[in-house]
């Protein structure tokens, strides 16, 4: 499980730390708005959210946040370019239909994007597939193959290659272990790709 620190999950705290005070933030897949609420309270952020579930949206709106029910695939295209300083996609990329379009849209409507996703290159995943011949079910990949919402898994290396193809600059890369702890990150991400259960990246568009 990911640890909690000061009422905010560690990965969310890492993301929160990267958000500038007073900036405009779009959180795609914002759940009940925990991160947005924290950013509003502690960093004076003008935040907006997109969330798929009615329960999540209701909870977020009920605490005064501006959140729309929708998803990354269908609801990013309408936002005007440069509308946000930061667009956040936490643990959602692997569940989108068109990850390339989503990433491009994020960097169109935001100056930079913060993306986190479970790493399919983690050694446990490799072990499960390589030795057991079974689809992996781990602490961060909790679904069986037949009920998973995750349709576009990738490894940290896959992600870096895609960023290169799309002309996206990786400004910062953070590798996280199963407890949410930060692991050392090597230049090309090969070690992180083996040891990290999730990757967290700050992206911008090459200009």
């Amino acid at each position, binding site marked *: 499980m990911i640890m909690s620190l000061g009422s905010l999950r560690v990965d969310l705290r890492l993301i929160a730390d990267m958000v500038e005070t007073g900036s405009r933030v779009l959180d795609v897949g914002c759940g009940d708005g925990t991160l947005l609420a924290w950013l509003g309270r502690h960093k004076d952020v003008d935040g*907006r959210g997109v969330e798929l579930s*009615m329960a999540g*949206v209701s909870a977020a*709106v009920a*605490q*005064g946040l*501006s959140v*729309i*029910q929708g998803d990354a695939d269908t609801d990013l295209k309408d936002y005007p370019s440069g509308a946000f300083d930061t667009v956040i996609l936490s643990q959602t990329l692997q569940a989108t239909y068109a990850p390339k379009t989503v990433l491009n849209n994020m960097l169109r409507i935001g100056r930079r994007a913060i993306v986190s996703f479970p790493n399919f290159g983690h050694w446990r995943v490799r072990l499960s597939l390589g030795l057991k011949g079974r689809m992996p079910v781990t602490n961060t990949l909790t679904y069986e193959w037949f009920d998973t919402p995750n349709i576009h898994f990738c490894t940290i290396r896959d992600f870096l290659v895609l960023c290169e193809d799309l002309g996206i600059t990786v400004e910062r890369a953070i590798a996280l272990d199963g407890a949410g702890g930060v692991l050392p990150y090597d230049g090309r991400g090969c070690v992180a790709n083996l040891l990290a259960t999730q990757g967290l990246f700050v992206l911008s568009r090459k200009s």
Partner: protein
Amino acid sequence: MDEPLSAMTDTASSGSSLSHNPLGLTVELGRDEPIRLDSGVVLDSVTIAYQTYGCLNADKSNAILLCHALTADQYLADPHPITGKPGWWNDLVGPGRLFDTDRYFLICSNVLGGCMGTTSPATINPATGKAWGQDFPVITIGDMVQVQARLVDYLGISQLFAVIGGSMGGMQVLEWCASRPERVFAAIPIATAARHSAQNIAFNEVGRQAVIADPDWREGRYMDYGTKPRRGLAVARMAAHITYLSEPALHRKFGRNLQGDRDAFEYGFGAEFQVESYLRHQGSTFVDRFDANSYLYITRAMDYFDLAAEHDGQLANAFKGTQTRFCVVSFSSDWLFPTVESRAVVHALNAVAANVSFVEIQSDKGHDAFLLDEPEFHATLSGFLEAAAARRGLKPAAGKEGTP
């Protein structure tokens, strides 16, 4: 029944301490500055009938305009003067309730063309001394909002804290936000659309043709003959009523159950099934409280509504630069104003980077869900209003500090 019900014309001076007016209020507008309708017709006198609840605060920042749907009226939270039934959002209005009358000043007016006291086809045409009938000018949602804005002027309110409404009321909310954005701090369009769909125009046309086909309609001059197109209007209501419900809701309520305690068919065209009896009842009671010409004019106004068309075909243009905070709500089983219509509004608002929340409430009650007990819906409205009120600097009602 279409006579103005008012007794208290011009008593609602702005900032007054009146809290409730069971008899209803009316005010005559347009005398100083005539009202130019979208059709080009100019009216120099329009009477608007309205209700208020709660008190306007000193800086006039706590007013909420509630816009009613097609066949509702200003009796938001009063017993209806004809049917005696509770107001259409009765359970949401009152001290400590969602629309807290200790905190907000609520205004609800009968729309232009409506038949509960506002100028309509049943009103006397000053030029002829007889009821307007079909000589009444065709009206639009924009005209309804223009008249509401005049009422808000009259009450001395420059900016409404919120404009809220469902269905046709939601169209008025959107029209307010497009035409008078600086006058709306927060907006809640519910179960509505930025344009009336072809299917909805089609349903409206069925209703209108039912009225017009009734020999008692008499080219709209039935009042001169002391008749009413009862059958036609009842059929119109029956057809429309189906569109307000959903198949699951109808099934749950009636199934294929037969009328009374029958267990066999009668092999005739009486009301065999409970659902038929229910619809007939809906039709006949509607006729007692609604005017046939009003029904024609108001449904027509809905048909004309197309906010994008008025803004170069781009809905986003209607909201360009808006500072209003929006909360858009739809219901999953609403097939009259389906979620896709609300999404179109949300996408347009996103395109202008507006401050917008949107939720599709899971309900199997169809379009009418916005008038029914839907706790998730009410919780969403409450949270949005609370946050907007804090932004607007509206204090919680006395005795409720610390319990937002």
